[in-house]
């Protein structure tokens, strides 16, 4: 453990820092002063080394920082035109992660990635009568929550994401560029209940 960390932990152990020792940041020599300042204030809250939390994490996690500027993104951006540049957007990295350490993976501040997403997107929780099983296993099967160039933060555009798994009938048939199976919302133009359906006739996620 870095000696500087020991000094900080004398007062700041506990709370969200209970699992700091042995955490990913700790074991990779990312100490307290890598992200926090002590003798001067830069950020408005939490003594961060940069103006905002996103900028602080973005020093090392540059790709995740860059992806929030992609076409589909969560409301993380600090925003140059906010009334105060010291305030983060509506979300920040700590909305999902605990950088001080967690017992789980990826520093997710919940028991699983899916449960983390469902804390705000509880409409996808179900259980549904007709499940779309990859949805119940992991939201990251289809989405990248840091941001993507595809709508709804999908990792691949439609219909390619769907045809990665589905190939029977019209998903597998070759289509022309203007086909209704390809343009617009593509597969979701009929299969709109993609996260699951509670309708008795919703087996195909149509209703």
């Amino acid at each position: 453990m870095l000696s500087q960390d020991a000094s900080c932990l004398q007062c700041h152990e506990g709370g969200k820092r209970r699992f700091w020792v042995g955490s990913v940041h700790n074991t990779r020599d990312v100490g307290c002063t890598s992200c926090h300042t002590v003798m001067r204030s830069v950020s408005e809250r939490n003594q961060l080394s940069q103006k905002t939390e996103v900028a602080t994490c973005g020093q090392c996690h540059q790709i995740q920082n860059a992806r929030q500027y992609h076409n589909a993104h969560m409301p993380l951006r600090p925003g140059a035109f906010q009334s105060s540049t010291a305030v983060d957007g509506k979300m920040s990295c700590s909305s999902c992660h605990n950088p001080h350490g967690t017992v789980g993976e990826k520093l997710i501040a919940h028991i699983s990635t899916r449960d983390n997403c469902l804390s705000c997107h509880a409409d996808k929780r179900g259980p549904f009568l007709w499940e779309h099983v990859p949805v119940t296993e992991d939201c990251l099967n289809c989405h990248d929550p840091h941001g993507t160039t595809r709508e709804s933060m999908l990792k691949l555009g439609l219909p390619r994401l769907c045809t990665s798994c589905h190939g029977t009938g019209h998903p597998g048939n070759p289509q022309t560029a203007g086909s209704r199976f390809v343009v617009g919302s593509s597969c979701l133009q009929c299969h709109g209940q993609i996260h699951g359906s509670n309708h008795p006739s919703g087996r195909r996620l149509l209703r």
Partner: protein
Amino acid sequence: MRRAVPAQALAAALGVFALAPGPAGAEEELGPVIVSGEAQLGGRGVWGQSGSAKFREYRDIPDGAFGSLRFLIEDAERRYYLKGWLDDLAEDDQQYRFEGGRYGRWGIRGFYSEIPHVFSRQAVSPYADLGKGVLALRPGFDRTLAAGSPAYNAQLTPSTAANPSPTLPTRLQFRTIEGSGEIFFKPTSEWDLSAGYRIFDRDGSRAKAFGFGSPGGNYINLAAPIRERIHEARADAQYVRETWNLGLNYTGSFFVNDLNGFSADNPLTNPLAETPGSSALGRSSLAPDNSAHLVSLSGAALLPTSFPARFAGSFAWGLSLQNDDFLPQTSNQTINGNPLNAARLVLPQNNLDGRVQTLAGNLVFTARPHSNLNLKARYHIYDYNNQSDEITFPGEVPNDRNIRAGTTSIANSYRRQDALLETTWRFTASTTATLGFEWQHWNRSGDREVRNLNEYGPTARIDWRAAEWARMRASYAFAARRGSDYNALPGALDGLRKFSQADRLRHRFDLQAQLDPRADLGFTITSAFSLSDYDDSAQGLTDDNRWNIGIDASYQLHERVGLWANYAYDYIWAFQEQGGGTWDSTTYDTAHNAGVGATSS
């Protein structure tokens, strides 16, 4: 699909300017209290096509003044305090945060935020929202006209003063209001107690589509209503000692949807012409009310060994419930009104009686048996046990047309396990090497193609401090994923493997360099390269490769002024083949991000 950025939207983005907000702050003694704070006030002007939804996706950016407020009120001894952060005052994305109490002992926090989510400011629709989930074609829309005829199509063109039509502007956005309150109490230096409540309220609409024909025939897009709330209650207790700590947490989440479904007129079938094969009205379900309860116990402890060793773990039990009443099988009255269909339209039960039990466990062990040697072991298990009823429906009416034989719903369950073993050896003063092994196992039930899936492989990492001001890291991970027999579902395409269950070989390389040649100058470079080969997939996704690089530079120009610049490049290449080789698809995604700025403190 790549879309050209509308010139007007780009102009709007470039045309926005803001007068630098002028802060004014002070600290004053007012009787028994000390008040300090800061007020910021600025002016904003926007020109260009300010109607761009993407520009205003999560923000309210009107012309005129904007401001924020910060304040801190303390007693003379500075034991008690009240803080406040108020931003975007009186705007649709306003946000307020308060905290007060006694330093280090107890406090209360409050938070209020409004988040707009704008999908489009130019949407038009022939549907009107009549409330309670009813979307009806506006008066004047004539469904008896021949589909595709000039007269019919004229109804779908946006209404103008010269050519009025039933297709009028419609709202395609929703607003989330988040509010929360929390109390926290620290009765002793070891105890941390807190309890809180949070609510999300979402109101508005979003684009949704469904069809009236099959496959892919006669579908409509409309603004489906959103009337949802999430209530979350939480209680947390932690006990922290020098060598061990323990925590207990309860979280209850309750999702409430004012609408269990919505209905919409079929623009191509009027009620007098309805047939079993073409319904005049379609009805779709919306997300059902549900609840989830989670109790978790976590803790960590230093082990009584002669060398530093620590154990951390957590155990969580969760229960999710859902018993919203089912909608009827169909809204097609020619099907509902035929007594011969009655037996197949019967709903065996009123609701799913949905119940899912989850168990999650984490164990982490770290040790330093030698000053140059670190050991780490981690184990994670997540069990998703779906105990919902499996219901056999005698019939079904997909797309509200043509009743046919029903089927049985399936409650899928799964268990996922992960394990990691890692050892780090510092073999010179400036260099450490890490070797590890990772394993992941999936066990699935229900109608899944692969019952057991294993992914495993070695990892390696080198950390090198080339100089006091230069640190570098390089890592490599290989993973081979292999499953039990792939039992394709009936009718599935031969050789197609669903990527979440398919065999896979994955290579991943990561590089990072942190350079601080001077106290006022720093650079960070990161790069990652991932190659995924779905080697047993003859069809479907066969390759997924990703590469990215990011560079960040910062320079402290002055004690109170810093400059920064960054650039990131993201590249994705994915290949899939389908249709027995009749077609294949290569997807390329590239993104460039660059930024420059200055900060003052």
